[in-house]
């Protein structure tokens, strides 16, 4: 409910928004690359990455508890001063541009490779960005209310596919768990820590929107959402492994491929379209949250009173960036997401978060003596 002009959401709504952001496109995109890296140990990689996510979320909630009404930029100004904040914000913004552009590009690539082969990718990307920009302009209250309904569609579709695929599962495909030792598992953990767990840092920009009376309840909700997210990703990964076995790593949109194999007495088949819809909806939701946070960060950094003013230009920049990411280059798109993105996220999200955390602890120690 809007209070004094500022939009607010409840702790439960924020937790659902968090789950959407973390699970969004990753439940459909994650299993393939992680299995390719870690083979049968992919689920262990996800557990390790989730442990990293728990540490990051602890830092996020610690900072939120200490500075409840402040976003990352405001906390930075209080704790480390405006110049270091500007430097950290630039890194943060660079990765947010990449996330916004990347998610929408993934939708375009998926549609182009599986459903609409004749349609030019830029047309799909332009339409998606227009849709996302309009949603972002509606504000966090509208976004949250709408997304709660949409996430139900995604969760239902994925659950349906996981359950209906039971007859295709072969438990023996899960063994051996570590065919090539632990190193591939760490590579999988590194990739999945980068996408999606490290990205949870962006919620430092959204937590100030929680209603004042819900401040104390949000911690439990966020951790619950993180664990449900890890469980969802592991379930999707195990399903892919049990369905395709050694070939699982070669499936790019693995849940889509798992759904393709469902054939129950000729009455229930070709339900992969539900996963297709889920991928588009989930990616749209995640990209909306990313663009919203991007506009918020830029507005706070440059003291722009209304973040809606910058939404359209930011969507335009993200659109062009997504097209630029498609060019043939030294590091291809898949390699960029799998290997460069985790390190990028480390500088853009983890370093700023821990800088503020350390500064917050130092301030806490200094306060009683001063």
């Amino acid at each position, binding site marked *: 409910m809007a209070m004094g002009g500022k939009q607010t959401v409840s702790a439960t709504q924020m937790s659902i928004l968090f789950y959407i952001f973390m699970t969004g496109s990753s439940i459909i995109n994650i299993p393939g690359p992680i299995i390719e*890296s870690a083979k049968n140990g992919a689920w262990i990689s996800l557990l390790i990455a989730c442990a990293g996510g728990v540490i990051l979320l602890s830092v996020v909630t610690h900072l939120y508890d200490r500075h409840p009404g402040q976003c990352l930029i405001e906390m930075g100004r209080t704790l480390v001063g405006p110049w270091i904040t500007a430097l950290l914000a630039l890194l943060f913004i*660079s990765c947010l*541009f*990449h996330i916004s552009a990347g998610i929408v590009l993934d939708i375009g690539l998926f549609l182009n490779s599986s459903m609409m082969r004749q349609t030019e990718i830029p047309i799909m990307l332009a339409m998606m960005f227009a849709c996302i920009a309009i949603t972002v302009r509606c504000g966090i209250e509208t976004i949250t209310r709408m997304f709660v309904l949409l996430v139900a569609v995604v969760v239902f579709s994925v659950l349906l596919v996981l359950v209906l695929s039971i007859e295709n599962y072969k438990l023996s495909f899960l063994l051996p768990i570590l*065919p*090539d*030792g632990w*190193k*591939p598992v*760490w*590579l999988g953990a*590194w990739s999945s820590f980068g996408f999606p767990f490290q990205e949870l840092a962006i919620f430092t920009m959204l937590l100030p929107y929680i209603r004042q009376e819900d401040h104390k309840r949000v911690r439990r909700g966020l951790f619950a959402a993180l664990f449900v997210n890890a469980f969802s990703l592991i379930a999707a990964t195990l399903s892919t492994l049990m369905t395709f076995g050694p070939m699982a790593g070669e499936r790019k949109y693995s849940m889509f491929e798992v759904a393709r194999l469902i054939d129950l007495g000729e009455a229930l088949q070709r339900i992969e379209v539900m996963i297709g819809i889920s991928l588009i909806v989930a990616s749209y939701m995640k990209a909306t949250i990313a663009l919203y946070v991007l506009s918020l960060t*830029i507005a706070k950094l440059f003291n722009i009173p209304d973040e809606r003013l*910058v939404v359209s*230009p*930011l969507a*335009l*920049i993200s659109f*062009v*960036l997504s*097209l*630029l*990411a498609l060019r043939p*280059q*030294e*590091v291809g798109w898949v*390699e*960029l997401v*799998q*290997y*460069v993105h*985790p*390190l*990028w996220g480390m*500088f853009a999200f983890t370093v700023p978060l821990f800088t503020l955390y350390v500064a917050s602890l130092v301030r806490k120690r200094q306060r009683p003596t001063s």
Partner: protein
Amino acid sequence: LLAIALYLGAKLIFHTSWPDLYDMVNAVIGGPARQIAKALKTTP
């Protein structure tokens, strides 16, 4: 912001070699990122 959009748009349309976000990121952390991936990859 519009200037950045125009710059990127010009780069895209005219296929210039002007640096964009991805070029800069690749130049700065592309090497170390690939080193990490290489170190963790196994060749059975």
